[in-house]
């Protein structure tokens, strides 16, 4: 008898169920011959979280997802889905998981409703529940009306992605894995998929792999960054920003003498320096970029006071430039594991 089934199965709302992570990787490794695709991967994803799985192409995102979905066997280490070891009980683990593979393969010659019906039967949805459940997911994914009877081969990329997501959530799994769900979509389609993922928040645990950083930043509660098969950073965008970036940046738009402005910077902070300055615009305003030490986000107010004291410039804007996930990603993937701050490692 499976060890997870030996004890009474916790109901979804029970404290035991909440305490069990939806996904857990313990020293997970996968090698293809001499090439190590992933190496010593350790992480957990809690119930109800929407987590982004970021990494450059070939970093090991898809390999990790395929191991969790039971498609690939890990070389060593363990992967758990809802506390169930995938290698030992793959069928049981698959009952708790919905997986949307990269490029979302779908049969071209089936109609949307026929395909979902087939998938529901494959996923062991009780016979009586199949029809209402299909209606429910089609409504959630915007596939009702004309689309439901259309051949999948005639659907646009956006609708095909919706069919993939509808399939992933069809059997009401605890966890869904989406491998590059917005790849090849136009901005409108990306927005609708993002809304769809948002609607799942709190109900399901979602792990989304992508290298589109803006999408991950907007959708996800937490981000995991993987590079060359190793997990190099885990946290929220804000915490990663603090921990990974060594400087903060401000944008100042003003009119007046720039060299004189540069001279007052030490009054604000000894480490504050002018990084760049644009040519004056039609009104004579220049855009100046300032760089200061990390985590000194209150310098803007001091700078404003200094400018007011000297009263030699017309100031239009002083803004802290929030580094995007792109900078975090670049910083995390540039650094080797050894140079990373311990706080950024898996907590």
């Amino acid at each position: 008898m499976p060890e997870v089934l030996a004890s009474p199965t916790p109901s979804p709302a029970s404290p035991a169920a909440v305490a069990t992570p939806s996904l857990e990787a313990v020293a997970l490794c996968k090698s293809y011959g001499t090439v190590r695709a992933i190496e010593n991967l350790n992480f957990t994803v809690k119930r109800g979280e929407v987590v982004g799985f970021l990494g450059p192409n070939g970093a090991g995102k898809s390999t990790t997802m395929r191991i969790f979905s039971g498609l690939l066997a890990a070389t060593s280490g363990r992967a758990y889905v809802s506390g169930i070891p995938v290698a030992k009980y793959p069928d049981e683990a698959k009952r708790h998981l919905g997986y949307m593979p990269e490029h979302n393969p779908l049969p071209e010659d089936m109609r949307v409703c026929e395909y979902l019906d087939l998938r529901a039967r494959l996923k062991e949805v009780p016979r009586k529940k199949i029809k209402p459940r299909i209606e429910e997911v089609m409504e959630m994914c915007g596939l009702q009306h004309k689309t439901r009877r259309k051949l999948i081969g005639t659907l646009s990329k956006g609708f095909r992605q919706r069919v993939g997501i509808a399939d992933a959530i069809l059997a009401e799994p605890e966890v869904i894995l989406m491998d590059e769900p917005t790849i090849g979509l136009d901005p409108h389609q990306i927005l609708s998929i993002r809304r769809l993922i948002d609607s799942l928040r709190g109900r399901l645990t979602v792990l989304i792999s992508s290298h589109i950083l803006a999408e991950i930043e907007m959708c996800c509660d937490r981000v995991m960054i993987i590079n060359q098969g190793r997990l190099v950073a885990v946290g929220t965008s804000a915490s990663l920003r603090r921990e990974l970036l060594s400087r903060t940046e401000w944008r100042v738009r003003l009119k007046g003498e720039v060299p004189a402005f540069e001279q007052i910077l030490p009054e604000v902070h000894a480490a504050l320096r002018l990084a760049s300055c644009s040519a004056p615009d039609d009104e004579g305003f220049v855009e100046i970029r300032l760089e200061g030490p990390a985590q000194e986000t209150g310098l803007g107010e001091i700078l404003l006071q200094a400018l007011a004291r000297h009263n030699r410039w017309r100031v239009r804007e002083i803004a802290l430039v929030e580094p995007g996930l792109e900078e975090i990603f670049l910083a995390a993937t540039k650094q080797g594991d050894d140079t990373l701050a311990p706080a950024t490692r898996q907590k």
Partner: protein
Amino acid sequence: MLAVSVAAYSAGVLFLLVMGLFYFLVLYQYNDSLRNDAPTAMYFQVFWVPVLFVVPLLTMKSLAEERRHGTLEAMLTTPASTLEIVLAKFFAAYFFYIGLWALTLVFPLIAMNYLAPHTPDSPLRDTASMTGGFLFVCISGLLYVALGILASSLTRNTLVAGMLSFSILLILTIGGNVLLHFNWQDTPFFNHFHAVVDYLQPFQHLQDFNRGVLDTRPFFLYASNTILVLGLTTLAVEARATH
């Protein structure tokens, strides 16, 4: 998918046309020179034509195309096991193949009722050879369809799968017959295998079935090899999907 596919019905109609032509030629030949065998027994002698052409066409897409499109991978992420998926593919193709053959039984029935309506001892009314022949098609079809599914599991290319299936079935159906026609039967090496080749001859089995001899050995041969081939197919799918 086969049951709702227009292509499947088109293939069915074409199959009936071809087999109808074969049955007509059998009747024509029978009329020209009276034979010992009943027309139905002669009709089932051409079973190798559908085996060589229909089985590869039916099975070549089953797993190869699923793998090429990635839909096999999507299927393997469901709780359905690899064996269940292979069995589903196998039975879908097998029942379609048997269904096509079952439709061709209309030809002897039409001949029976319209060409010899009041002659009970007419060779056209030989229901024993019809039942035996159809039973042979059902039993041998198990192995032939399983081999087609195995060929489809070994490659992503449907054309390669079809050709592989065709080659295996060609060797299995008429290979032994060709071998026995050569003059090397007297060589010591061949003597050892003569009994084996003879035992594997599907035409020999068909002849027995047509005569109403239901030997358990062909049943065992086809059933056991079908299980073996389906087991190998499951291993092939698992090996290619999970590594």
